């Protein structure tokens, strides 16, 4: 039960002033700008866009600045801002097959059409802190090489298609005619949830939560033998069917990271065994997120693939109810609201119990003394 309390207005006003002051920090230090955040902390912006569920770099950068770098606070700000804009509709589904690839790797095959393209990655750095980056470091110009048609045209074949040619991997589920795409921002979630809703939930989910769950599957809590079939990152064109124009208008491009996991094979009495799949897709260069999403996506398919649901990552209700960090922090941080009356009644009950305990102890003592 919440108590409505009054009298904090002046204190709150002063607290906000102090917050703004602390946020600015030492005035001799130059103010951080939104382009600086968007350019030089790009991956932070990517995360806020992903979990805030809103692709807009400038807004995400502003949120990070306003939240003083507290990512979940920034995500909260972005989610709230989303609610102020009208929705025009849904885009045509993006075609990651036509991505202008900047990075594309596979752990299942060494030689793939289009090749292994490392792109800008931390993967091979030695993880040594570099004091040179502290100030005034000017990076060297990147090297150029002749681009194969695949990279510049954006038509890079999928690794999963290679496996599918020989029937070795399951196909992606196709939509029924007139099937409505689930939207958890419009209808409250109910379980069991279909794959489209699960993926939407995972796409906005907290990266840390998904990472831990994904890790847990690898440690045996719902193991599904994952291999990275392919990870690709780059720009993808977005189109929107506008009623006004009567055709799909191009809106521009967004950066996406896609992960295809190749998992534990599965067969049945009527079908030969083949590899199963997990899928991850995230805004920006969010590799860890897309990989974790793919691992958990596969784990959540336990019911569909007739696997025993034993581990947390396979438990749909557990995963999907706790994955949204804005929802989670809402409930956790609400504990800071006054619960004074509640607590008074707890105190009262505790005192009564302690009195009864003391009396009972006293009676035992008297009895023992009498004996």
């Amino acid at each position: 039960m919440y108590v409505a309390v009054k009298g904090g207005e002046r204190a709150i006003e002063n607290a906000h002033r102090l917050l703004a002051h602390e946020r600015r920090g030492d005035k001799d230090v130059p103010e951080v700008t939104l382009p600086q955040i968007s350019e030089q902390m790009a991956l932070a912006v990517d995360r806020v866009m992903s979990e805030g569920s809103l692709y807009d770099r400038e807004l995400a950068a502003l949120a990070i600045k306003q939240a003083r770098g507290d990512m979940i606070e920034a995500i909260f700000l972005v989610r709230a801002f989303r609610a102020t804009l009208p929705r025009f509709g849904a885009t045509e589904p993006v075609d990651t097959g036509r991505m202008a690839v900047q990075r594309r790797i596979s752990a299942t095959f060494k030689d793939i059409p289009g090749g292994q393209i490392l792109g800008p990655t931390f993967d091979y750095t030695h993880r040594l802190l570099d004091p040179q980056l502290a100030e005034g470091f000017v990076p060297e110009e990147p090297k150029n090489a002749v681009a194969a048609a695949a990279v510049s045209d954006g038509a890079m074949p999928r690794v999963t298609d290679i496996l599918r040619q020989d029937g070795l991997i399951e196909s992606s589920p196709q939509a029924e005619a007139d099937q409505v795409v689930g939207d958890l921002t419009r209808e409250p979630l109910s379980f069991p949830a279909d794959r489209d809703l699960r993926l939407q939930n995972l796409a906005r989910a907290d990266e840390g939560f998904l990472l831990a769950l994904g890790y847990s599957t690898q440690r045996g809590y719902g193991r599904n033998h994952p291999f990275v079939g392919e990870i690709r990152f780059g720009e993808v064109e977005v189109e929107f069917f506008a009623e006004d124009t009567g055709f799909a208008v191009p809106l521009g491009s967004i950066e996406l990271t896609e992960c295809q996991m190749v998992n534990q094979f599965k067969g049945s009495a009527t079908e030969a065994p083949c590899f199963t799949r997990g899928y991850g897709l995230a805004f920006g260069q969010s590799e860890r997120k897309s990989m974790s999403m793919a691992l958990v996506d596969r784990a959540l398919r336990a019911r569909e693939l007739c696997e025993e649901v034993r581990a947390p990552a396979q438990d749909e209700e557990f995963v999907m109810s706790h994955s949204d960090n804005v929802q989670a922090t809402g409930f956790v941080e609400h504990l800071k609201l006054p619960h004074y009356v509640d607590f008074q009644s707890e105190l009262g009950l505790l005192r009564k119990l302690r009195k009864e305990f003391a009396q009972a102890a006293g009676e035992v003592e008297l009895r023992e003394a009498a004996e």
Partner: protein
Amino acid sequence: MSVQDHMQRDETRDIARRKAAMAVLAHAAAAEIRACLEGVALPAYEKLREAESGLVMVRGRVGGDGAPFNLGEATVSRAAVRLATGEVGFGYALGRDSEKALMIALCDALVQSSELAEVVEDRVIAPLRAALTADRQQQAARTAATKVDFYTMVRGEG
């Protein structure tokens, strides 16, 4: 081909031309579009839809090629104009830049006008397309340099 077939083919071609122009404009920065438009004598026009910002829900596909799912929203600006000569143009672009959407709507209308289509193609679309292509080629060249050139080590050699 019947008259209808011809008309349909023309319409398809017109739409393709508009889409191509829109794609170039959507990828360009507002400042670049503005600079190009300075060289074009704009006819009188009225705003059918005042530029506004909103959201579109971006959709992905399960497995990359399967059933659609809702990935997350993106900000979008849109506008609609009508030239004094009657052509109606629509402007849509990611982001919250109302002026950019308006300029795209203007260009879309101009692309449809028989008198000004060539001018807007020469002064606006073509230069922006060239800049976009150059950017993409630069990106592709840098990416290609990070492509792994595997060579096998033969055991027992040397």
